[in-house]
């Protein structure tokens, strides 16, 4: 039996096929879920894929948050289902309030498209359960608004509750505390700016994202 992972597609999303291909190469089933769907039945996990949902108008993720599918995503997350927001998906999760904080324009105001070395900072999330604490992973980033920001109280609780999942080894965008990815309190909702689905095949430069995707698939299997 394999897990079925829904890949959420808004108008302007552009990483859904990469995510689906990477998940399927690891034995999962992937199903594209369009933004106007209101049911997520039959799905064991969700990926909110990267891109430019609704053109990133107003702010990245600001309009996507009001899509019909969001209510279903919120219920899925609240019932413990694994949800991973990648890049624009992370921005959607913050805008919708499923994750705290916000993603600001990069320090230096440059669009960054490069490899980034990440360090696993917690293994108690659906995205990192199969990784090792301190493990370094080379995973590409591709964003303009990736500088994670939150107030000091939020940062304190993220640290105390072991919710900082991934940190940049060499902070490229000015994120507070070098944060590349965070989780909610239960660890089942994770947002990260780097693209693990683009680091899923050795022939494309790195397969370091595989351990993250495998963790998600394992969590989805447990839900199934």
């Amino acid at each position, binding site marked *: 039996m394999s897990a079925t992972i829904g890949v959420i597609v808004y108008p302007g999303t552009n990483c859904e096929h990469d995510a689906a291909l990477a998940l399927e190469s690891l034995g999962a089933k992937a199903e594209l879920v369009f933004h106007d769907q209101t049911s997520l039945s039959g799905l064991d996990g969700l990926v909110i894929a990267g891109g430019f949902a609704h053109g990133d108008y107003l702010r990245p993720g*600001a309009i996507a948050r009001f899509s019909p599918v969001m209510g279903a995503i919120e219920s899925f997350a609240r019932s413990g289902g694994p949800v991973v927001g990648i890049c624009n998906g992370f921005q959607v999760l913050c805008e919708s309030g499923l994750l705290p*904080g916000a993603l600001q324009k*990069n320090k230096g*105001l440059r669009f960054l498209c490069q490899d980034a070395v990440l360090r696993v900072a917690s293994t108690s999330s659906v995205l990192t359960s199969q990784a090792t604490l301190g493990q370094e992973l080379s995973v590409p980033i591709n964003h303009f608004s990736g500088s994670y920001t939150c107030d000091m109280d939020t940062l304190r609780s993220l640290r105390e509750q072991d919710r900082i999942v991934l940190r940049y080894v060499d902070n490229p965008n*000015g994120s507070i505390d070098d944060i590349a990815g965070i989780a909610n309190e239960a660890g089942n909702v994770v947002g990260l700016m780097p693209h693990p689905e683009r680091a899923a095949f050795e022939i494309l430069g790195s397969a370091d994202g595989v351990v993250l995707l495998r963790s998600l698939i394992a969590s989805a299997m447990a839900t199934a």
Partner: protein
Amino acid sequence: MKYLAHVDVKLRPGIADPEGATIAKALPALGFDSVHAVHVGKRFTVELDANNLHEAQALAASLADRLLANTVIEESIIHVTEA
């Protein structure tokens, strides 16, 4: 009644403003030596219907908080006039 709501959205104090900082750095190069700082924000002009000014202000405040500003990092200043 028709109203115009002008909503200015700006970053909360203490939130990094890389755009403002970049503009502030460029201005002295053009001879504007007396500039200390620049803060970048957005202005929205919203045309709306309401029964009275009070209602229009409440409506504008609500839509600013729910959509126009990300209240985690931004705050809004609202000014409503009759259209």
